[in-house]
């Protein structure tokens, strides 16, 4: 915790602490919008993904998407929340041009789920750092306003309007910017793991508002909070929280009060600024959405959804340690995201040696992905083919360096390892006839060395094998050559 600036001259320096709660909006991975059949696909032409409903045309009505409920409940379970058997929708009323109906349909009085938690790391004494999750609720996204595209006008693209989101609200239990960052990273990993969201920051599928207040360390009463918006990366969240904490500390230290207001993070300037004038303080006039009866979920359905919850990251880490005897550092890398973990696991299951599978995935594979800027989901080498490649190495049919060349080609072509090795002539030859022929040729061409070796100069074996390798253009199995020379010397 950073030290507070000195208060009035002569007074003891006051230690301040920050109290931070996060509101995280995450786009759910559905094909269609929350209340209409429009596609949610990113990158469509402006307003192409709109219909009478999400344009808010007069006379239209919302109809809730089943998949959004499923994914929301799955997220709620993963966050250890209690899922409400009856939840209600509400209207949040405010004017903004990218909000077509003049209200957002969200959940207010009775959210989808409440009272969960998320473990975001470990304390120095190895106890878990647990942050409470106040609620998880469903709501629709707004559209997009483009202010800089045309002179004097704001351009509206409503393709996002009505896209399903969950809002995850944390308890105000975060005490450092670093912890806030950890909360977000752990949450992102979790939601990706269970297939609830792609959590793609560039496409805006995770957005964060941070509520920040400052109090003297040891105080139990909360200070006045401000809400910082416009946070579109994890580092922005951490930097903005630090900046706002510094601003609030400075205010408190000089005896000024912190005003309750909305702040915007300006990434370029690295500072927070008040978002609006105070004259029109917000009054969202929430009331129950009359177009949607309450959402009723049967206990059986909710229980079944919990049973069907995919493996969570922590469980996967434990299992990888047990099933594949991997160290913590390897597990950390291999379980960073679900796609990589799944890839590794397929390789490990297809090949006898999980440790060598881990080395290949963390080594060659990650290096290739990085170098070619390819996401693992688009990688051309199928995990089962990587397993086969490792089998070839283990069986002695491919040298380690040849295997690297084969892998590089597989990454380009997507071809199977045997095919590539064959085509490139890299498969080791262990056929006895061919080996014997090369050995005979070398003995015939280098009789002196052969005699010295037979006389007991063991170091000459390397020379002989090297010559035979050259004759085989590198394809001969060196172990077989060794055996063949020593057998002939003995015989």
């Amino acid at each position, binding site marked *: 915790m950073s030290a507070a600036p000195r208060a009035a001259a002569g007074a003891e320096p006051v230690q301040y602490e920050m109290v931070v709660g996060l509101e995280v909006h995450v786009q759910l991975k559905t094909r269609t919008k929350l209340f209409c059949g429009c596609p949610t696909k990113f990158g469509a032409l402006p307003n192409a993904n709109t219909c009478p409903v999400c344009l808010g045309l*007069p006379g239209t009505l919302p*109809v809730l998407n089943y998949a959004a409920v499923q994914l929301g409940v799955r997220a709620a379970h993963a966050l250890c929340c209690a899922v409400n058997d009856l939840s209600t929708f509400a209207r949040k009323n405010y004017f903004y041009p990218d909000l077509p109906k003049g209200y957002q349909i969200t959940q207010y009085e009775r959210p989808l789920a409440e009272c969960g938690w998320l473990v975001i790391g470990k304390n120095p004494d190895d106890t878990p750092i647990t942050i409470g999750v106040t609620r998880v609720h469903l709501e629709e996204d707004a559209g997009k306003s483009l202010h800089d595209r045309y002179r004097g006008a704001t351009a509206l693209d409503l393709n996002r309007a009505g896209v399903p989101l969950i809002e995850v609200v944390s308890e105000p239990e975060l005490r450092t910017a670093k912890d806030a960052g950890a909360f977000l990273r752990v949450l992102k990993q979790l939601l990706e793991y269970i297939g609830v969201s792609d959590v793609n920051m560039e496409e805006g599928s995770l957005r964060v508002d941070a509520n920040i207040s400052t109090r003297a360390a040891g105080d139990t009463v909360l200070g006045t909070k401000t809400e910082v918006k416009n946070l579109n990366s994890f580092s922005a969240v951490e930097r903005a929280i630090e900046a706002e904490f510094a601003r609030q500390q400075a205010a408190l230290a000089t005896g000024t009060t912190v005003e309750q207001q909305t702040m915007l993070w300006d990434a370029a300037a690295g500072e927070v600024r008040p978002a609006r004038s105070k004259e029109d303080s917000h009054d969202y006039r929430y*009331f129950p959405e009359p177009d949607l009866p309450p959402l009723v979920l049967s206990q059986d359905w909710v229980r079944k959804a919990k049973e069907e919850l995919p493996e969570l990251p922590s469980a996967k880490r434990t299992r990888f340690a047990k099933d594949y005897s991997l160290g913590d550092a390897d597990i950390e890398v291999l379980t960073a995201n679900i796609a990589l973990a799944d890839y590794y696991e397929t390789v490990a299951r297809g090949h006898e040696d999980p440790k060598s599978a881990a080395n290949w995935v963390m080594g060659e594979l990650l290096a290739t992905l990085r170098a070619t800027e390819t996401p693992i989901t688009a990688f051309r080498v199928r995990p089962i083919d990587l397993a086969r490649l490792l089998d070839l190495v283990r069986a002695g049919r491919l040298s380690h360096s040849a295997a690297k060349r084969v892998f590089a080609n597989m990454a380009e072509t997507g071809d199977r390892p045997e095919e590539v090795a064959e085509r490139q002539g890299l498969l080791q030859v262990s056929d006895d006839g061919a080996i014997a022929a090369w050995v005979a040729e070398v003995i015939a061409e280098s009789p002196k060395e052969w005699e010295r070796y037979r006389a007991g100069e063991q170091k000459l074996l390397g020379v002989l094998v090297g010559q035979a390798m050259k004759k085989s253009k590198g394809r001969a199995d060196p172990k077989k050559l060794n055996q063949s020379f020593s057998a002939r010397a003995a015989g």
Partner: protein
Amino acid sequence: MTDAATPKAAVPAGRVGAYPDAPDAVARAFDVMRTTRAAEADGLNLVLWYDREHAAKAARDVQAALDEGQDLGPLAGVPFVAKDNIATLNLPTTCASRILAGYVSPFEATVITRMERGGAVLVGKTNCDEFAMGSSTEHSAYGPARNPLDPTRVPGGSSGGSAGAVAAGIVRVALGSETGGSVRQPASFCGVVGVKPTYGRVSRYGLVAFASSLDQIGIFGAGVDDAATALELVAGRDPLDSTSADIPVPRYREAAQRSVAGLVIGRPKEYFPPSLDPRIAALCDRALTRMRELGADVRDVSLPHTDLAVPAYYIIAPAEASSNLARFDGARYGRRVPAAGLRATYEATRSDGFGSEVTRRILLGTYVLSAGYYDAYYKKAQEVRTLIAEDFQMVFASGVDVLFTPTAPTTAFPIGAKVGDPYAMYLSDIFTVTANLAGIPGMSLPIGRVDGLPVGGQLLAPHFDELTMFTLAYNLERVLGQDAHR
């Protein structure tokens, strides 16, 4: 101009499709267009938008299908009109508001699709109070509609244009909408049949929302059979409306064959206060006597929270309206009044686009939802709404099949009589708002006249029991005969 002093006779009740002068659907459509023009030339201002070419084409298509031998059902080739807050593809949908001037919906309401699938031909969009907010069809951006039976008087509202179009003999079937009696009250004022189905019985998709938890599309008919036929066609689950019920639709027209013998009719005392015009009360009691003569059992009952209905309604409806009307900001559709900056444009667009009653209700609704007032007003009104619904549940659980009341406390009032006093206007919904608050079905049908002006009797039934309601209505219509119109 019609002679104001001598009210005209309303079109007598009869079977749908009884247009004796028209040999086929096309001729009938032209006939309707002629009547429409004549009515508009008379200054009734009932129909806002109609398109002769389009109606003729639709009629030709239906006639061609009929000539091929297709069975489209009882409304094939029957012309109808729809209130201007129901989305249609080929005619404007302005909700009688300036803010939607010229707006043509790029999609159509489920009810329109279903009517047209049954061969009915849309011939026009009717005048109404702006966004259905009003009880007289005076609050229209396109001028007040007039009652065809006495053009110095209002046709009632907010669906006054649709009620008037049936009363004027333009069409036998019309669609309207109800939030607090906007079909039943004008039906009463115009001497026609008006049905508000159970909430959830008819899809609201395409009905421009006023107060979503109360809104329901309703049907006007020249007679009970016209309304029952059209309701049968448009009712039923619609996947586009989450509040539409998945409950089978009975054959309402079969109610015509049913008897009222043994049915229990409740007469709620709160709907017959001492202040009620005794001539209206007498017409109601005459109707009840006739029902008793047919074997029905009439009982006095009580719905003790009735007095709270208007106050609860005038909290809930404006609150929902303030939110529903936020979308009219001139950004994506409708009329924009440009000003400097976005905020100013919003304010210019909305202030210029909405009329005085809509503005008043948006302010009221915003106020009751705003921080610090929500519990005292909106939350409290919703709780009172529960009490009102429980009143009905208890009465129906006690063995009462249908309730019978006057539809409105007065007959059609003169144009301008109540526009200056909003609350006096609100009180003309006093007997009708309860059904919207409770979500139960209700209807109004003519039961006689006072000073030559129609009086409607109201039937209220339990949720989704329109069939029993129609049973009573068919019988009452039959037994009253011409007495209903004099």
